[in-house]
C-alpha cells in the first residue's frame, strides 16, 4: 500500500504539540513522582526509594490479578450483551431502532457511581425491590459477578454503538459476494461480516477494558464487602489516607498503565494482521434485511436489555430523588418535589456547577476530537518517523486513574517558576479531562482510518490537493460518524468525571459530580440524586439534539 511519505506535515505538527501538553507533561510528572518521592516539595532526593516498598507489598499481586479479572469479566459480559444486539441492529431492520439507540445511550450517561448507588438502593435488603416485590438480591450485588454486572451495564453501549456502526459501514455487500460464491448465510456472517467488523469490536473492547480497570466508584462501593480489592481502590487509599503516599499511588498507577498497554498491544496485533479496508469510495447500498418471524423475539430482547440497563437505574434514581426522606421508603406520603425544588432554588451552587460541567464537556469533546483525529491520521496514514511513539502516547492515559492524572497536573503546573499557569483556573479541569479521555477519539479515529482505502487519498493528492485539504475534505468527512460518536462519549464522561475533579477543581469551582458527591457526603442522598437525574436528562438530550441537527443538515444517519 502506498502511504504518504515526505516531511512533517502540518497535521502531524499540531498533533504532536497538542499531545505534549495534554499527555506528555502530566505523564512525565507522574513517572517522576514514582521515581523521586519528594518531588512535591521540589526535591529530587532519594530516587527509587519508594519503589521497593510499593512493589514488594504482598497484596500487590492479588490486587493486580483482581484488576485483570474484573477487566476480563466486564469485557466479556459487555461483549455478550452488546454484540448480538449490534449485529441485529447493523444488519436487520429492527423495529423502533432509533428508540433502542436512545435507550442504550442512557446507561452510558448514568455516572457509574450513581448507577451503583441506584442498584444498591434497589437490591439491598429493604431496598426498592423488597418494598415492591418482597425480595432482595444483596448477595448477588455485593459479589464479584455483581460488580462486573453493574459495570457492564454501564459500558456495553460503547461496544454496541461501535460494532453496530462498523457492521453498518461494512454493510452486506461483502457478505453478498460470499453468498454468490455459495456460502450459507451463517457462514457468510461468521467468515466475512464479523471479521470485517473486527476493528470496531476490538477498539471498543479495549476501551471497555481500560474503563473497567480504571473505574473507582463501583469496586469501592461494592467490592469492600466482598473483600475484593483492586489497584484503583488501593491507589485512592494511598492518596486519601494521611500520611499521603503520592509516590506509592504513582507506582501503582504505572502498573495499571502497563496492564492497559498490554491490552493495547494485543489490539494492535489483531488489527495489523490483515487489512480491514472496506471504505473504498465505491457506492454502498445500505439495505438492511427484514427480520421476518424473528421480529417479536428481537423486540423482546432489545426491550429486556433496555429495561435492565436503562429503566431500573433511572427509576431507582428518580425514586430516591422524589423521596422526601430515605427512611420514609416508597409511599405516596413520602413523595414530593422537595429535592428538585432545592436544586433549582440553589442558583448559585447547583446551576453554576451544571453550567461549568456542560461547558467543560463541550470544550473537552471538541479538543479531544480535533487532537484525536489529527493524531490518528498521523499514526495510520503517514510514514512520519516516531508515529509509533505518537500511538503509544495516545494510549498512555487510557488506564491512568483520574486521581493520579490530577496529582500529575498539580505537580506539573504548580511550579513556582512558571510565569503563567492554568492551575487554579477552570482550564486545569479541561486539561485533566482531555488527558483522561483523549484515548477514546483516537481509538475510534484509528479504527475508522484503518478502513479507508489509501487510494482515496492518493487520488486526491494526484489531483493536486494539499495534505491539509485532503485531511479536511476527504478524510475528516469519512471518519465523521465515528468521531461524532466518540466525541459524544467524551462529552458524557467529562461532564460527570468525579475522581480527578475532586482533587484538582480550582478553589470555589464546583462541577456536577463534585456537587453531587458533596450532597452524598453530607447525607443528602435525595438532593444528590435529583441533581443526577437532571444531569442525565440534559447530557442525554444534548447529544441527541446535536445528532438531530447534523442529520437534518447532511441527511445521513449517524446514530
Amino acid at each position, binding site marked *: 500500500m502506498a502511504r504518504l511519505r515526505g516531511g512533517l506535515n502540518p497535521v502531524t505538527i499540531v498533533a504532536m504539540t497538542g499531545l505534549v501538553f495534554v499527555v506528555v507533561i502530566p505523564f512525565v510528572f507522574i513517572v517522576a513522582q514514582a521515581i523521586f518521592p519528594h*518531588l*512535591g*516539595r521540589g526535591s529530587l532526593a532519594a530516587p527509587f526509594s519508594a519503589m521497593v516498598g510499593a512493589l514488594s507489598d504482598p497484596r500487590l499481586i492479588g490486587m493486580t490479578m483482581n484488576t485483570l479479572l474484573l477487566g476480563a469479566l466486564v469485557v466479556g459480559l459487555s461483549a455478550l450483551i452488546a454484540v448480538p444486539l449490534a449485529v441485529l441492529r447493523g444488519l436487520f431492520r429492527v423495529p423502533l431502532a432509533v428508540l433502542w439507540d436512545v435507550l442504550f445511550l442512557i446507561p452510558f450517561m448514568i455516572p457509574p457511581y450513581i448507577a451503583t*448507588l441506584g442498584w*444498591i*438502593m434497589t437490591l*439491598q435488603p*429493604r*431496598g426498592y425491590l423488597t418494598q415492591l416485590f418482597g425480595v432482595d438480591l*444483596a448477595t448477588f450485588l455485593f459479589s464479584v459477578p455483581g460488580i462486573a454486572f453493574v459495570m457492564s451495564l454501564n459500558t456495553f453501549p460503547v461496544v454496541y454503538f461501535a460494532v453496530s456502526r462498523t457492521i453498518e459501514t461494512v454493510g452486506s455487500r461483502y457478505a453478498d459476494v460470499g453468498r454468490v460464491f455459495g456460502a450459507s448465510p451463517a457462514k457468510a456472517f461468521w467468515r466475512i461480516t464479523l471479521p470485517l467488523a473486527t476493528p470496531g469490536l476490538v477498539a471498543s473492547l479495549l476501551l471497555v477494558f481500560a474503563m473497567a480497570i480504571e473505574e473507582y466508584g463501583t469496586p*469501592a*462501593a461494592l467490592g*469492600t*464487602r466482598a*473483600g475484593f480489592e483492586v489497584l484503583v481502590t488501593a491507589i485512592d*487509599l494511598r*492518596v*486519601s*489516607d*494521611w500520611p*499521603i503516599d*503520592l509516590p506509592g499511588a504513582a507506582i501503582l498507577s504505572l502498573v495499571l498503565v502497563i496492564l492497559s498497554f498490554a491490552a493495547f498491544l494485543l489490539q494492535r496485533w489483531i488489527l495489523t494482521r490483515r487489512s480491514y479496508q472496506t471504505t473504498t469510495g465505491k457506492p454502498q447500498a445500505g439495505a438492511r434485511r427484514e427480520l421476518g418471524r424473528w421480529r417479536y423475539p428481537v423486540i423482546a430482547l432489545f426491550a429486556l436489555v433496555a429495561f435492565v440497563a436503562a429503566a431500573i437505574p433511572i427509576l431507582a434514581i428518580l425514586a430516591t430523588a422524589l423521596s422526601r*426522606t*430515605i*427512611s*420514609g*421508603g416508597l409511599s405516596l406520603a413520602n413523595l414530593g418535589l422537595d429535592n428538585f425544588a432545592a436544586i433549582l432554588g440553589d442558583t448559585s451552587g447547583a446551576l453554576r456547577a451544571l*453550567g*461549568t460541567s456542560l*461547558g*467543560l464537556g*463541550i*470544550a473537552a469533546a471538541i479538543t479531544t476530537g480535533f487532537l484525536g483525529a489529527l493524531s490518528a491520521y498521523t499514526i495510520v496514514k503517514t510514514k512520519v518517523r516516531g508515529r509509533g511513539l505518537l500511538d503509544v502516547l495516545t494510549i498512555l492515559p487510557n488506564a491512568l486513574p483520574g*486521581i493520579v492524572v490530577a*496529582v500529575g497536573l*498539580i*505537580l506539573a503546573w*504548580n*511550579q*513556582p517558576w512558571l*510565569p*503563567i*499557569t*492554568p492551575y487554579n*483556573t*477552570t*482550564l486545569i479541569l*479541561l486539561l485533566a479531562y482531555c488527558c483522561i479521555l483523549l484515548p477514546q477519539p483516537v481509538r475510534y479515529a484509528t479504527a475508522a482510518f484503518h478502513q479507508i482505502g489509501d487510494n482515496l487519498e492518493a487520488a486526491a493528492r494526484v489531483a493536486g490537493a494539499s495534505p491539509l485539504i485532503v485531511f479536511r475534505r476527504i478524510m475528516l468527512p469519512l471518519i465523521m460518524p465515528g468521531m461524532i460518536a466518540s466525541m459524544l462519549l467524551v462529552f458524557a464522561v467529562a461532564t460527570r468525571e468525579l475522581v480527578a475533579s*475532586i*482533587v*484538582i477543581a480550582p*478553589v*470555589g469551582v464546583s462541577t456536577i459530580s463534585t456537587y453531587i458527591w*458533596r450532597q*452524598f*457526603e*453530607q*447525607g*443528602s*442522598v435525595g438532593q444528590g440524586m435529583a441533581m443526577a437525574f437532571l444531569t442525565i436528562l440534559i447530557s442525554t438530550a444534548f447529544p441527541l439534539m446535536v445528532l438531530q441537527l447534523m442529520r437534518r443538515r447532511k441527511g445521513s444517519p449517524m446514530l
Partner: protein
Amino acid sequence: MLKSVFRVAFCAAALVSASAASAEVTVYTAGPAALIEKLAAGFTAETGIKVNFFQATTGKVMARIEAEAANPVVDVLISASWDTATDFAKRDWLLPYASPNADKVPDFLKTDTAVAQGVSALAIAWNPSSGTPKPSEWSDLAKPEYKDLVNLPDPAQSGATFELVAALSASQGWALFDSLSANGAIVAGANAEALNPVLQGAKAAVFGAVDYISFNGKAKGENIEVIFPASGTVIAPRPVMILNWSKKQDEAKKFVDYVLSDDGQAIVASQNLMPARADIKAERPLIADLKILPVDAEAVYGKRAETLADFAKIFAK
C-alpha cells in the same frame, strides 16, 4: 452553557491576573460544604475580605496540599482530624497564633498553632423502624438481635472511627470487634456510605457514626436516632490552622478570629457540630454531656498501621 465555554476560554487569557487581587484568603477545608459556605459569606460580610475555599474530605485536601507543596497556595486549613494539626506542627508548617476569641475554648481543644473550630463525636446511629430493640451500648450491637444488621465506617478512611477503634481496643481488647464480626457486622466505606443503608433499613445501626451527619438527617425528617453510649465515646475536634507560608497572614488571622466569634460559632452550632467555645449553646448534647474515652494520640497514632491491620484481619472475609 455557552457562557461556560467562553469562561474556559477567558480563563486561558486571564491566567496571570488571578493572583493579583488584594483582600482575599484561601481556605482548604474538610466538609460539610454548607458550613464553609456560611462562614465564608459571614466573614466577607463583616470584613470585606473574599474567601476562596476548596472543600473535600480531609484525605483529598491533604493530597492536594502534598502535591502543591513546592508552591503552596493555601492560607488557612480546617481539617476534620486533630492528627493533622499534630503532624503539620511537627513538620513546622504552621504559624503560631492565639486568637483573642480562643480564650473561651477549653485548653484541650487548642495548641500554639491550632484551635478547634467545632467538635463532632461518634455515636450509634440507629433506625427505630428496623424492628430491633434500641441499643444503648457499643456491645449491644454484637447481640443476636442485630445479626447482619450493623455497619462500621472504615477506620482507614475515617479518622474518628480509627480513634474509636483504637480507644475501645486499648481499653477492652479486640473481643468486642471479634464478636461484632462474628455477628455479621461489616465495614462499609466512609461515614456517609455507612449511614445510607441504615436510613433505608438494610441495616439497623452504624457502629461509630459521625453525630452531626445523623443529626442533620434527623432534622430533615429521616427516621434515625443518635445514641451516645454511657461507657464513653471519642470526639473529633476539627482544628483550624494558619500555614506559615501564607502571604495573607493578617487576613488568615482575621478569618480564625471570625470562626471563633459569636457569629462564627453560631454557624458551627447550626450545622449540629459542637461549638469549640464552651460558652456557646447548641441544640444537641455538648462535650460536658458526654463521657469521653481517653485517647493517647501519640501512642495511638504511633501504631496506627498495626491497629488497622488487626482490625482488617478481624473483618476480612
